């Protein structure tokens, strides 16, 4: 495959940020199909339009996910990318790798693909970009046999679950995000690889309310770590921050002079519930008023830590705008201890998930995310499905319209009445 002139793309070799164009050119020396990637992309830069077509049936046998079909609409000019299918590999929880594992993946992709990847896709998969239909089965064979690795989800499947790095390298992980993510990924292999649902379904696991994997914005089933006792305080460290021994916000503001640390201005006054105050140089917190937003802990990580009675809040139904508009996940279960049972399963979490699925598989319309189903039937119906007691925590404020859908059995005497009896007392 010949090199193509790429005067427009060459402009993207300039500047301080790493250049994917330079990277593609380097790769093309070993994998000449990358010249055709560059060539076709240059054409798109000139035409201001994509040159890819979607292919629907492409996959490995028996799997309904993990491969997304892609074809060039100018294959005669760029034969190296005539087929350019995507392969999604299920990443290990929180994306730690050994170089040995990565090199194995690189070698496999050198053999069967274009050499280009996404580290990682938006859902979390390690994405291999660009291979042909005949390469898919041999690639899958070696992937499973030699690399002990499997594909991720796509289509109407459970999508590849994703978690924050949690307890591996963060002091705020309120439950074991990696273990929950991995355990459920293994538990639901069938749902990840074969379609089961009206539409996609995503799990995301964050260890604390900072929510570094954006569970509340992006996942149908968001498990977000929290605690229900008191924030742990090291008063000596509080004094250290006030004195200036420790840099506030872990040094996140070190590039600008914001003046001396002011605990009142930077912590107490920014607390959304105003539940903190100083008594002399002692910090006090009314924990019953705290909504666990993390701000004070973020600013003074050496002095404050989440409480010890840890677990997670479960929120359901987030999605990007398509179709009804963007939704955040709705708080459904305020607190769940995220515990493994003796069989190595998170039975309580599984029970919640399957309650949602059993209902949504029945009631959800085609191409309707569960958040849209909840919107359509109403939160009260969903809470009944979930067998969750309605709580003031489920709402921001009570409804302001009076149109309650009363059920017949809730009203004395029921709905059946006799109009003739009525007319005897109330004339037409």
């Amino acid at each position, binding site marked *: 495959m010949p090199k193509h002139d790429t005067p427009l793309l060459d402009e993207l070799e300039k500047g301080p940020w790493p250049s994917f164009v330079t990277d593609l050119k380097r790769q093309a020396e070993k994998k000449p199909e990358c010249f055709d990637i560059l060539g076709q992309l240059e054409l798109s830069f000139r035409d201001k339009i994509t040159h890819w077509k979607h*292919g629907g049936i492409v996959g490995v046998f028996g*799997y309904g996910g993990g491969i997304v079909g892609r074809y060039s609409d100018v294959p005669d000019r760029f034969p190296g990318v005539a087929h350019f299918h995507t392969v999604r590999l299920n990443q290990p929880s929180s994306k730690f790798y050994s170089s040995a594992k990565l090199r194995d993946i690189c070698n496999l992709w050198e053999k069967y693909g274009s050499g280009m990847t996404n580290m990682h896709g938006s859902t979390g998969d390690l994405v291999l970009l660009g291979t042909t*239909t005949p390469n898919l089965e041999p690639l899958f064979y070696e992937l499973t046999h030699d690399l002990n690795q499997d594909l991720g989800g796509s289509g109407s499947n459970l999508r590849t679950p994703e978690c924050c790095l949690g307890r591996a390298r963060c002091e705020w992980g309120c439950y074991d995000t990696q273990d929950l993510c991995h355990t459920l990924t293994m538990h639901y292999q069938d749902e990840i690889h074969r379609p089961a*649902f*009206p539409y996609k379904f995503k799990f995301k696991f964050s260890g604390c309310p900072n929510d570094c994997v954006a569970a509340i914005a992006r996942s149908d089933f968001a498990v977000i770590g929290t605690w229900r006792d008191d924030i742990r305080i090291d008063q000596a460290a509080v004094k250290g921050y006030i004195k200036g021994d420790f840099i506030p916000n872990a040094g996140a503001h070190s590039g600008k002079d914001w003046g001396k640390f002011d605990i009142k201005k930077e912590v107490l006054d920014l607390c959304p519930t105003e539940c903190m105050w100083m008594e002399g140089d002692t910090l006090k917190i009314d924990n019953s008023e705290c909504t666990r937003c993390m701000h004070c802990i973020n600013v003074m990580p050496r002095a404050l830590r989440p409480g010890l009675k840890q677990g997670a809040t479960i929120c359901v139904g987030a999605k990007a705008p398509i179709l009804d508009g963007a939704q955040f996940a709705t708080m459904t279960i305020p607190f769940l201890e995220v515990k493994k049972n003796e069989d190595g399963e998170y039975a309580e979490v599984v029970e919640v998930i399957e309650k949602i699925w059993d209902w949504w598989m029945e009631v959800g319309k085609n*191409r309707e995310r569960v958040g849209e189903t909840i919107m359509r039937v109403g939160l009260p119906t969903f809470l009944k499905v979930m067998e969750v007691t309605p709580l003031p925590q489920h709402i921001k404020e009570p409804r302001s319209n009076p149109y309650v859908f009363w059920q017949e059995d809730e009203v004395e005497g029921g709905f059946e009445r006799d109009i003739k009896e009525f007319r005897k007392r109330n004339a037409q």
Partner: protein
Amino acid sequence: MALSKDELKAAILEKALNGPKAQLYVKDFYACDPEAGPRDVKNAANDLVKEGKMDFWSSGSTTMYAAKGRAKDEEHR
């Protein structure tokens, strides 16, 4: 009385082969046995793919089923 798994698979395949729609959502097969649960239906449909009698067709975001050879696809135009 619910259908047996084999009867359910036969009903699904019949609909995929001879129904008016070439591509079907899993929900379209629920009517093959109104007494079967959604999971039974999707497991039966997925079995038919494993047996090579049906294909998955995916838009990338959503997945449908089609009897072998009936789905519309770029590569098979």
